[in-house]
């Protein structure tokens, strides 16, 4: 039977998922009906099933582990996390830093106003207020400095970069789906 190009578009790229039992409902019915009358896709489906069967029959790479192995690994992980920072709280995150930075800037602005206009300060604030403002600014500056200090994590120790290699992979994405369709239309 001749391959029906139009009908194959949108079906042929689903054959592997169908062979793997991952399609349901309308999508699965569409593939099932198509392979009934398309010999080419039926052959591709059969080939995909063969490859998948072979993949599933591959032996486990790491081999079996005993209970002691898992217990030891869990204990090591728990012990390591005990040495590192607890889950980040809001005041440790970027938002918190912005908030603290904002507070610091506000306090610095008030201090600049106080220093620049001493006569007005005499009218507006008692000497004790100057003292507490200064302490506040100093405290915030110290806090911001400590927040800004890079915290060494286990990743730094292990030399593992915090990047996301998957983001850098130029493989297939949503845009490529167009190209997949184009493969078939080009052949028409």
């Amino acid at each position, binding site marked *: 039977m001749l391959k029906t190009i139009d009908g194959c578009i949108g079906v042929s*790229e*689903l*054959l*592997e*998922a169908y*062979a*793997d039992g*991952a399609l349901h409902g309308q999508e699965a019915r569409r593939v099932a009906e198509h392979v009934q009358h398309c010999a080419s896709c039926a052959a591709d489906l059969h*080939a*995909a099933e*063969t*490859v*998948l069967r*072979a*993949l*599933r*029959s*591959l*032996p*486990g*790479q*790491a*081999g079996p*582990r005993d209970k002691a192995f*898992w217990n030891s*690994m*869990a204990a*090591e*992980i*728990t012990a*390591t*996390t*005990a040495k*590192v*920072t607890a*889950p*980040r*709280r*809001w005041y440790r*995150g970027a938002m918190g830093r912005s908030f603290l930075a904002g507070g610091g800037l506000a306090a610095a602005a008030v201090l600049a106003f106080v220093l620049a206009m001493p006569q007005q300060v005499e009218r507006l604030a008692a000497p004790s207020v100057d003292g507490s403002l200064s302490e506040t600014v100093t405290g915030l500056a110290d806090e911001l400095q400590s927040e800004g200090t890079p915290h060494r*994590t*286990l*990743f730094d120790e*292990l*030399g*593992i*970069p915090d*990047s*996301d*290699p*998957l*983001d850098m*992979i130029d*493989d*297939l*994405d*949503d845009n*490529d*789906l167009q190209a*997949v369709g184009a493969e078939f239309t080009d052949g028409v």
Partner: protein
Amino acid sequence: MEAALTPMHIAMTGTTTIQDDDRLLLERMREGDREAFSELVVRHQRQVFYLVWRYVKNDADAKDVVQAAFVKAWQNAEAFRGDSSFRTWLYRIAVNLALNHVRDSGKWKTAELTEEHASHEVPGMQRLVEAEAAQQLRKAVETLPPKQRLVVELRVHEGLSFREVAEIADCSEDAAKANFHHAIKRLRSELGNAE
């Protein structure tokens, strides 16, 4: 982000799923509860270890990467939005670290056959042929483009749904299926050429 499960919710809806239990544990972990974190480690360390092992190919490196993945999960629990399950989030962290590790160490090793495989009850010559075919197939999987390989590993060996695979691979479900399609086609072609 979905609302956190409360004891009342559980009482009203009956039994919880593993994902629900994970969410409860994650909530506690976010509060700094180390016992909840330990429970999550015990639940997921095996699957994460086997997944990572397929990339790094030795116990010591796999253990280091798994440990680093859990530590990263612990440190970033607060930032986890809960759009995916804890498991898929953890897998994504682990796969990224494994890929970084392999890239940095320059190790793209070919799979070694294990004793487990060598002990199959088949006659000598047949066993050799099967072992070579398995080695060939494993090598073909390892030379797939990274995202295609990830989709195959997660789908075939971890048994994840395409939705979960898509979350880990950071793409749409359709893109995950398209990657799967191209991966299987490529394996089929390479195995055909080897024959």
